[in-house]
């Protein structure tokens, strides 16, 4: 027998474990062991070894691995394997009520919960998936059962996978919570339930940075397989998660819900920041505390789906998100189509974040033998605030998420401001000299270069007819490219390949190629319709439009891919009646495949993902592009906010920021704002004064020679938010910390206070130098020209010479080697 003193010590030890914090435990032990130091010593030893003991048991949980001996020792193993598994026991709970829900049918069962299809009667009648937590669930055995990394487990959650939960149930009643289903399918025989059990998992080491974990689940009755995939990027602290759903049944399976990812989190509070907006007001931050119930951020507009809200969010635990402290998650769906992010806070304060394609109107029929692969959800986490979350996304994007992320970007000049639709060959060529004079690397010919019978001379005709307008450009595109090249600049072109105008040869030939619904008048938007990419002939056509433009004209080395409308009438003359709901999914997969072909076949062509501005900004499409167009709003005052919003997920090297006359702000202010991203211009050079031309030329030279390396490849630190301050401030620090650039934008009149840079090497000494000053002016920055160590700079800051609205300052910090 265990002796009495050990027994007493065990009692106190077990009771002490109920105390959560070390301080609470000390108080408890002071009372329980009063006057008995030997007892206290024994209990403390037990407490000390307890967590180590837990780990030891977890590491050594026994499991069977394949071994020749055990397999050969049994005859008839194949026979056994053919026998179907036993069925789940009938459940006595059916028909029972839990709160406002009536249990209709058991959908599945996991290690710690049972999921029912339930009916909610009030306030609305609807069917929901209801998860009831089993009592007495043993968290550790659940973890061990899946035996995958803890991190991987915490990142996944499907209705039929045991969750890692504190059950926290009392004898008085089982806790329950209601969830949007992550996966819902109707099987070939009409059965609407799915049960998924763990089959196997593998962890593949892709390289020193990347590992891919695949967790295979299967319905015990149906040949229906679900694989959870997690790709972990160790250096960037980023995980991509997606789900593969495979149907091996005899007939089609209907997928009603098919989320990419649904992690479960636990914290006191959750603060969600969404990035919403509209045309010209993109990526506006809006933060709120999540309350019990389901909060849904979504898009239902099918294509260029981020117009009203991007498919990315910041989720802060316990407190509103801060830049440099606190636990923060960042999430971003790699999908240009409709999406849904549903945030459920349950009564135990757990949060489930269900993320994926929006199931609204997108039911998908999976044929026998087919696999449906959801888009990937990108996650990162930091306990050092959302600033680090952004830097994780940025580093990941530069290495894995975009094209040529570790190179540079050309400075381009666009003709739109100068000409709009009114140009010909002579006018365009005349603009090349202006571009050259300003120091641009590239000239971009915008909308209006194509169409003959339905010439594109305004926005009402010609889309779809991607042949050069021979009246306007009689020598063709290669001639223009050669003219540009002769002046030492590259040549690029605008395309909107997914669209068609009713006034076009294409529409006259193939009206059935446009997206639309039977018996409904076509709903025109900007006079145009979208093409139905679910139709193979249309996919071929769209690809040929691109290929026939680029291949015969190798001088074109830049493509601006525009898309100016979304889907309001989802309908296809190609898809059968029963598969109309496939349109938007088929569309976006086809779109991504065409984009990927563009990247593959034309590696020398730099590509901008443009969609009227902000309409298509996601890492699904960006994979095949170099930059995106954040907004048609180029008023630098508004751009400070728009760029601030997008910077939470997308690095400066992806953001096309152009200097224009919009808003009539000071030219230096416009330049300083655009230089914090990928600088370009949309200016009518002929209308600039010689002083303005000199200012722009000097700014571009500075950007190319000194700033671009740091801003495009460095780490971003957001210092002062324009949402909370009369000014905005940010800095970029090169990967080796030897160079930094600080930007300050004054948005309201205010006294100038010090701005404190971050991310510097505290030991390194930096020479402070204000740049982009008006010709002949000296810096009013007190510390200009001084050499100061990083620690002092970060502690005391620099007082920028900005007090009045639209004053701005760019300060270089050059480390001494």
């Amino acid at each position, binding site marked *: *027998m*265990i002796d009495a003193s050990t027994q007493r010590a*065990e009692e106190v*030890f*077990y009771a002490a*474990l109920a105390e959560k914090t070390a301080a609470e435990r000390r108080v408890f032990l002071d009372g329980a062991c009063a006057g008995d130091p030997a007892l206290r010593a024994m209990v403390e030893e*037990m407490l000390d*070894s*307890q967590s*180590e*003991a*837990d780990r*030891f*048991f977890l*590491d*050594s*949980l*026994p*499991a*069977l*691995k*394949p*071994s020749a*001996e*055990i*397999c050969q*020792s*049994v005859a008839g*193993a*194949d026979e*056994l*394997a053919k026998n179907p*598994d*036993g*069925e789940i*026991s*009938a459940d006595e709970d059916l028909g029972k009520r839990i709160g406002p829900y009536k249990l209709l049918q058991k959908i599945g069962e996991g290690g710690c919960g049972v999921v029912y299809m339930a009916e909610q009667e009030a306030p609305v009648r609807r069917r929901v998936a209801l998860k009831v937590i*089993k*009592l*007495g*669930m*043993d968290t550790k*055995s659940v973890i*061990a*059962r899946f*035996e995958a990394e803890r991190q991987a487990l915490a990142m996944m959650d499907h209705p039929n996978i045991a969750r890692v939960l504190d059950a926290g149930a009392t004898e008085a009643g089982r806790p329950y919570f209601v969830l949007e289903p992550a996966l819902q399918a109707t099987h070939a025989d009409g059965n609407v339930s799915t049960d998924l*059990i*763990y089959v*196997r998992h*593998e962890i593949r080491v892709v390289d020193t940075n990347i590992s891919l974990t695949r967790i295979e689940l299967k319905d015990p009755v149906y040949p229906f397989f679900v694989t959870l995939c997690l790709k972990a990027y160790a250096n960037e602290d980023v995980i991509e998660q997606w789900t593969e759903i495979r149907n091996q049944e005899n007939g089609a399976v209907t997928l009603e819900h098919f989320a990419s990812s649904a992690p479960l989190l636990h914290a006191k509070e959750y603060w969600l920041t969404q990035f919403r907006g509209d045309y010209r007001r993109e990526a506006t931050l809006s933060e709120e505390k999540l309350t019990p119930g389901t909060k849904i951020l979504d898009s239902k507009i099918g294509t260029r789906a981020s117009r009203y809200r991007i498919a990315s969010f910041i989720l802060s635990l316990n407190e509103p998100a801060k830049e440099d402290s606190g636990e923060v998650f960042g999430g971003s769906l790699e999908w240009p189509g409709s999406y849904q992010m549903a945030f459920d806070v349950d009564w135990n304060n757990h949060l489930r974040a269900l993320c994926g394609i929006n199931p609204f109107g997108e039911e998908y029929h999976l044929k026998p033998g087919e696999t449906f692969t959801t888009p990937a959800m990108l996650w990162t986490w930091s306990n050092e605030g959302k600033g680090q979350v952004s830097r994780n996304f940025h580093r990941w994007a530069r290495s894995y998420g975009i094209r040529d992320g570790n190179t540079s970007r050309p400075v381009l000049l666009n003709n739109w401001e100068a000409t709009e639709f009114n140009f010909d060959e002579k006018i365009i060529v005349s603009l090349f000299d202006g571009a050259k004079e300003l120091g641009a690397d590239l000239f971009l010919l915008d909308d209006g270069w194509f169409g003959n019978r339905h010439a594109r001379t305004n926005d009402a005709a010609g889309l779809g007819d991607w042949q050069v307008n021979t009246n306007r450009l009689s020598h063709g595109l290669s001639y223009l490219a050669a003219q540009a090249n002769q002046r030492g600049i590259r040549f690029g072109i605008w395309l909107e390949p997914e669209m068609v105008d009713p006034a076009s040869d294409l529409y006259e030939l193939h009206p059935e190629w446009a997206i639309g619904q039977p018996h409904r008048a076509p709903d025109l938007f900007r006079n145009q319709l979208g093409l139905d990419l679910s139709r193979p002939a249309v996919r071929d056509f769209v690809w040929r439009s691109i290929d026939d433009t680029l291949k015969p004209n190798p001088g074109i080395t830049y493509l601006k891919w525009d898309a100016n409308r979304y889907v309001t009438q989802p309908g296809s003359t190609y898809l059968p009646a029963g598969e109309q709901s496939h349109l938007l999914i088929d569309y976006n997969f086809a779109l991504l495949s065409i984009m990927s072909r563009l990247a593959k076949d034309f590696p020398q062509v730099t590509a901008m993902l443009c969609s009227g501005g902000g309409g298509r900004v996601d890492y699904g499409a960006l994979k095949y592009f170099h930059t995106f167009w954040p907004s048609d709003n180029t008023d630098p005052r508004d751009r400070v906010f728009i760029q601030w919003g997008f910077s939470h997920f997308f690095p400066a090297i992806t953001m096309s920021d152009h200097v224009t006359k919009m808003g009539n702000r000071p030219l230096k202010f416009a330049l300083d704002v655009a230089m914090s991203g990928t600088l370009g211009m949309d200016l009518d050079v002929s209308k600039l004064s010689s002083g303005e031309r000199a200012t722009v030329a000097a700014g571009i030279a500075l950007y190319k020679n000194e700033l671009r390396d740091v801003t495009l490849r460095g780490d971003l630190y957001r210092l002062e938010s324009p949402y909370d301050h009369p000014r905005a401030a940010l800095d970029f620090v090169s990967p080796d910390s030897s160079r930094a650039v600080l930007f300050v934008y004054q948005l309201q009149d205010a006294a100038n206070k010090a701005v404190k840079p971050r991310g510097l090497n505290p030991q390194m000494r930096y020479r402070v130098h204000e740049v982009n000053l008006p010709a002949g002016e000296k810096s009013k920055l007190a510390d200009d020209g001084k050499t100061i160590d990083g620690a002092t700079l970060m502690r005391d800051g620099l007082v920028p010479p900005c007090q009045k609205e639209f004053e701005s300052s760019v300060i270089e910090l050059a480390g001494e080697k």
Partner: protein
Amino acid sequence: MSDVTVILQAIGRGEERTLDELLPLVYAELRHLAAARMAQESAGHTLQPTALVHEAWMRLVGDGDRTWKNRAYFFGAAAEAMRRILIESARRKSRLKHGGGQERLNIADLELSDTTPDDKVLLINDALERLEAEHPERARVVVLKYFAGLTNKEVAEMLGVSERTVDRHWVCAKEWLFRKVRTQM
């Protein structure tokens, strides 16, 4: 009707059939199942005991039998059978690891750690034998949870104690076993 059901029913009627008769049947079934499952698996895959034990119950008895007493007998025997299978497997692999296999290994491939998971299972089992002498009820909780992967609730119903008692036994037993094992490592 399977032999196992016959035995369980006999025990239920108070007949002189014993758990000793149950054990070899359950043991054979578990090995059968393990082999069948493994035959379909790729290398590197592992089988969790809890899945096997529950599957064996479904196959041998099925959900027709809802009496907790029968489940308790069955799972008690299954846990003991599973323990034997796991220990056999760990011993075999531990022997191979420590030179029994006579296999030539590249020195670069050898792990630095000298205590493998299989060794740990064996060490825990040794310590568990000592716990069985000192505190049989607590040792039984360990067998059921550690080797058969049963939940606190299942163990509580089998032993006729509260879940809290099961949890206390489990937490204290882990701590006790770990301190015994630590001296061996």
